[in-house]
């Protein structure tokens, strides 16, 4: 069902855990399956994401996309981090089964939520970032299963 990369990131997830006093935290839930993901960001003065950690209550795809997403944003600046879409995460994982596409949205949304938290705390505006919804609505997900 899952690609080798997914299985790798699922069984040895990178960056599991919490960051104390994070620059931003985002927690999102998935309306479709009820799963939950939390992302912690440590962002330095130059706006570089120095560290990123996650905690996920979710399926194998959710864990793997969390892991991959944290890897992808680490070391990036905020602008670049915004480009880590669910599509980018899926590609990096060699794809997901159609029924699991929505899981990858969790990762994207969690990063956005953490960035929003950072922006709010620091009273800045991040170009292209919208206020995250509380959860991912069903409409956004097109499933072919």
């Amino acid at each position, binding site marked *: 069902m*899952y690609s080798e990369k997914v*299985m790798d990131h*699922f*069984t040895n*997830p990178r960056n*599991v855990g919490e960051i104390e006093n994070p620059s931003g935290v985002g*927690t999102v839930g998935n309306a*479709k*399956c*009820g*799963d*939950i*993901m*939390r992302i912690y960001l440590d962002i330095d003065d130059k706006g570089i994401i120095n560290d990123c950690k996650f*905690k*996920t*209550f*979710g*399926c*194998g795809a*959710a*864990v793997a996309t969390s892991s991959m997403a944290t890897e992808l944003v680490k070391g990036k600046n905020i602008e670049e981090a915004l480009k880590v879409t669910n599509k980018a995460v899926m590609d990096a994982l060699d794809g997901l089964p159609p*029924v699991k596409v*929505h899981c990858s949205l969790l990762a994207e949304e969690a990063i956005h939520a953490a960035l929003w938290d950072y922006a709010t705390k620091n009273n800045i505006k991040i170009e292209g970032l919208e206020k995250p919804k509380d959860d991912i609505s069903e409409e956004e997900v097109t499933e072919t*299963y």
Partner: protein
Amino acid sequence: MDKKIYLDNAATTATRPEVVEAMLPYFTEMFGNPSSIYEFASQNKKAVDEARTTIANSLNAEISDIYFTAGGSESDNWALIATAEAYASKGKHIITSKIEHHAILHTCEYLEKNGFEVTYIDVDEDGILKLDELKKAIRPTTILISIMFANNEIGTIQPIKEIGEIARENNILFHTDAVQAYGQLNIDVNALNIDMLSASGHKFNGPKGIGFLYIRKGLKLKSFIHGGGQERHRRAGTENVPGIVGLGKAAEIAMATLEERGQKEAALRDMLIQRVLTEIPYARLNGHRAKRLPNNANFSFQFIEGESLLIMLDMQNICASSGSACTSGSLDPSHVLLAIGLPHEIAHGSLRLTLSHNTTEEEINYTVDKIKEIVAKLRSMSPLYED
């Protein structure tokens, strides 16, 4: 462990070698069509009749009341749809439960779209049907009560005798989906007032793609699959002779080994439950502790999600499931676990382990050890868990 540990016998079972052995001659040698009139085909007819007799005897049923189908789903569909069609003039109300298999639930939805009304009775927190609700649900227009014998997820055995009596007193037909119970429990359709009963071969070490429906003599049910005159004009299609022979053989073995096997499985199952509940925090057993199939254990582990658990067990060579196999593509938490009152996120972290006659103590111990490790690992990753 190198060997695979298969603990998903509620999803499907291995066909017993004796069953395959019994089927083999009917593929290449005695392959005739039982409906043909030449001698060559009469041995097939005889083989089909023998299987029918074995199954009838196992239920204390009349031989001619057993009809072969392609499995539990077809049997369930047939029972509900044909009863609805045959008795619509009497009434258009059907009663079932909230914890039925989708083969019943989705057929009920289909009937609802076609002008029937369906009442879905609740179960209590142990997963046992609320008989008082059932009684209250009965209307003058109720034509059928369909309640499963034992649940496929949490293994709870329903009060079939009481339901049968209620149905009989109110002159309502009673169908039971016994797909999980047949071959594990003793069933007497007369003592239990059962009018129709569904079963499926692959759930009791028989072949896949074959099952039966018991229909008590005198019921007006017509066929569900229309065509040739097979199965006394009630189920068209060339008989699946090897499948039927295998079904009969599996039924024979299941009945002969029922008591001993049940005791053995229940003992291991109890050990499994005991260890999990004492060694893993925030774990609960779903379904009634005693009124459950001898081979079924169903747990919820708070703060973790089911699929992750399953995949990690799989990596340790342990085959288990969460909810029913045929809906594992689905994202909704089990309707059965919701029906017994579990909140959404706990329903999501359920694990079903179902044993077979081949399950060993060693396998159970290894499995519990692994569950412990995995649950701990997943909890350490969970945003819901604070230790």
